C-alpha cells in the first residue's frame, strides 16, 4: 500500500461525497443562493432544481416525487416517521411493533412514545439477525398501528423479509416503516412492489452529502410534522431548504441508480472474497449475519478470544479503517445490542469487526487485508489469557 493511502472499509459510517455530487452542489453554495420561497425568479427558479432532485430520489425508490420529503438525515426521517405517524393516528390505536435490532433513531423514538402512553413490542430475531416471522405475527394486535423493521440489519447486513412483513400487514391495514439507511444505494428498492409505506435514509451513506436525507411517505398516509413552521415540503417539514444538500442528494440518487448495476456485482465479489479469505485463513472465527441474505458490502466477523478495539487499532496501524459496530451508536457500550439480540455471546460479540465495502474499494485492498489480518489476530491472541487457556485445554 502506498504510504499516504489507506484502505477505507467503513462505508457504513459514511462515504466520500462523489465529485459529481460536489460539482452539482457548488453553484447552490455560490451564485444560486436564493431562497426557493422567494417571489423573484432568482430564488423561485430553484424550485425547478429541487423538483429534479425530488424526481431523482423518487426514481431510485420507484416512488412518486410528491411522496419524497427532504430531511436532514435518516435519524430525523426515522424520528419523524415514527413519532409523526403515531401522533397523527393514535385514535386508531396506540400499539407499535419494532424489531429488536433497530438503530437508536428508531428504538429511542419508540421509547419516547412510551411516555405518551404508547405500547411498544419488539420482534425477536434469529441467529442471523433476521426477524422471526411467526413471533412477529403473534405480536400483532387490533390496536397495532405501525410496524418498523429495518430494511437490512444495520450491523451485520442481513436482509429482512420485507415482502413477507408487508403481505401480512396489508390485510390488516397496519402501516409499515423501514429504516433503509444502509440499504439505499446498495440494493435496488422498489417501494411500490414491496408495499412499503414509509422509508427513511441518509445521503452520506451512498456518496451524497452529510446533513441530507429523505423520508418517503406513501400517498394517503397522514403524519404530523416533527418540525413545524413554514410551508416548505408541502407544509410537512418546515425550514428553509438545504438547497445545496438537496441538489447533492438528488445527484447521488441519480448516480446510484446508474451505477448500481455495475458496482453491486463488484461489491459482492469483494465481499465474498474477503469473507472467504478470513474464514479460511483464521481459526475460531464466526461470520455474523446471514451468509447469503445480506447486503453486498457487509463483512461482520467475530474473532474468538479477542476484543474489538485492539483489533481495530492494529488494522489502523496497517492502514485499514474498519469498525467494531455501528459508528453512530454509543461509544460507551462495549457489546453491540444488535449482536446480543442475535444471541451472540458477549465475549464473542466483543471481538467482532465490521468491514463495510464501497464502490471505491478494490480487490487489491481486499487481498492486502486477507494477508495482514491473520498476523494481527495471531499477535493479539498471543497476548490473550483466554486463548492461552483454550490452547492448554485442547
Amino acid at each position, binding site marked *: 500500500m502506498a504510504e499516504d493511502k489507506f484502505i477505507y472499509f467503513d462505508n457504513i459510517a459514511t462515504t466520500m461525497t462523489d465529485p459529481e455530487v460536489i460539482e452539482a452542489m457548488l453553484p447552490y453554495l455560490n451564485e444560486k443562493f436564493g431562497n426557493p420561497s422567494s417571489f423573484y425568479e432568482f430564488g423561485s427558479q430553484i424550485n425547478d432544481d429541487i423538483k429534479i432532485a425530488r424526481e431523482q430520489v423518487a426514481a431510485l425508490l420507484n416512488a412518486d416525487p410528491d411522496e419524497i420529503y427532504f430531511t436532514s438525515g435518516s435519524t430525523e426521517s426515522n424520528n419523524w416517521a415514527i413519532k409523526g405517524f403515531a401522533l397523527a393516528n393514535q385514535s386508531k390505536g396506540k400499539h407499535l411493533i419494532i424489531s429488536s435490532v433497530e438503530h437508536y433513531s428508531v428504538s429511542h423514538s419508540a421509547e419516547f412514545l412510551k411516555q405518551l402512553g404508547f405500547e411498544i413490542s419488539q420482534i425477536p430475531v434469529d441467529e442471523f439477525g433476521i426477524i422471526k416471522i411467526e413471533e412477529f405475527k403473534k405480536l400483532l394486535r387490533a390496536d397495532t398501528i405501525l410496524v418498523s423493521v429495518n430494511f437490512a440489519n444495520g450491523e451485520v447486513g442481513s436482509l429482512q423479509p420485507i415482502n413477507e412483513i408487508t403481505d401480512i400487514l396489508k390485510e390488516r391495514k397496519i402501516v409499515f416503516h423501514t429504516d433503509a439507511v444502509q440499504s439505499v444505494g446498495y440494493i435496488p428498492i422498489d417501494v411500490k412492489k414491496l408495499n412499503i409505506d414509509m422509508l427513511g435514509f441518509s445521503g452520506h451513506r451512498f456518496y451524497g452529502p452529510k446533513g441530507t436525507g429523505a423520508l418517503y411517505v406513501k400517498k394517503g398516509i397522514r403524519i404530523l410534522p416533527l418540525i413545524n413552521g413554514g410551508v416548505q415540503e408541502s407544509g410537512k417539514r418546515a425550514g428553509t431548504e438545504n438547497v445545496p444538500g438537496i441538489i447533492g442528494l438528488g445527484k447521488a440518487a441519480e448516480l446510484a441508480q446508474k451505477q448500481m448495476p455495475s458496482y453491486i456485482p463488484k461489491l459482492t465479489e469483494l465481499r465474498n472474497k474477503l469473507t472467504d479469505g478470513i474464514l479460511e485463513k483464521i481459526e475460531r472465527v464466526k461470520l455474523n449475519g446471514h451468509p447469503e441474505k445480506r447486503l453486498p458490502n457487509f463483512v461482520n466477523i467475530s474473532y474468538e478470544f479477542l*476484543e474489538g478495539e485492539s483489533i481495530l487499532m492494529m488494522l489502523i496501524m496497517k492502514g485499514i479503517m474498519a469498525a467494531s459496530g455501528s459508528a453512530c451508536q454509543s461509544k460507551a457500550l462495549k*457489546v453491540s445490542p444488535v449482536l446480543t439480540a442475535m444471541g451472540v455471546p458477549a465475549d464473542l460479540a*466483543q471481538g467482532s469487526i465490521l468491514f463495510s465495502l464501497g464502490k471505491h474499494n478494490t480487490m487489491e485492498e481486499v487481498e492486502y487485508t486477507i494477508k495482514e489480518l491473520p498476523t494481527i489476530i495471531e499477535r493479539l491472541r498471543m497476548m490473550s489469557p483466554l486463548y492461552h487457556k483454550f490452547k492448554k485445554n485442547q
Partner: protein
Amino acid sequence: MTNPIKYNKKVMEHFSNPHNMGELENPDGVGEVGNPVCGDMMKISIKVEDGIITDIKFLTFGCVAAIATSSVTTTLVKGKTLDEAEKITRKAVADALEGLPPIKMHCSNLASDALYKAIVDYKKKHGIPLSEEEIGREKKIDEEDIHE
C-alpha cells in the same frame, strides 16, 4: 462533545510493542482480574527472589488501554520489592503512560489490581501473613470484579 478515544504516543508505543508479554513458567504468584463478558481480562505472573520481583509477565484480553497499562505496569514493577510494587497505584500506572482518555481510566485499575492479586497470591503461597489492610484491598478488588 462526542469524544472518540484518542491515545497518546506513549500508550501507542506500549500497545505496539508491549513489554513482558506472556506467561511465566512456574510463577511464584499469579493474579487474574476481569472477565471476557465485561471486555477486559488480565493475568499477571511474577517471580520473586529475596522479596524482589525479578520477573513479570502479563496476558491481556482487552482494548488498547488495557494492553498498554498491562505492559507499562510490568516495566514499573520489575526489580522492585514487593512492598514497593504493592504501592503502585492506579494513578502511577496512568501517569507512566502520560495519561489515558477519561473513559479508559478504569483500565489502569485493572492492571494495578492484577499485580496486587499476584503479590497477595505469592504471600499466601509463602505463608507471609497479610495485614488487615491487605485483606481489605483484596476483597474490594474481587467485589469490583464481579460488579463490573
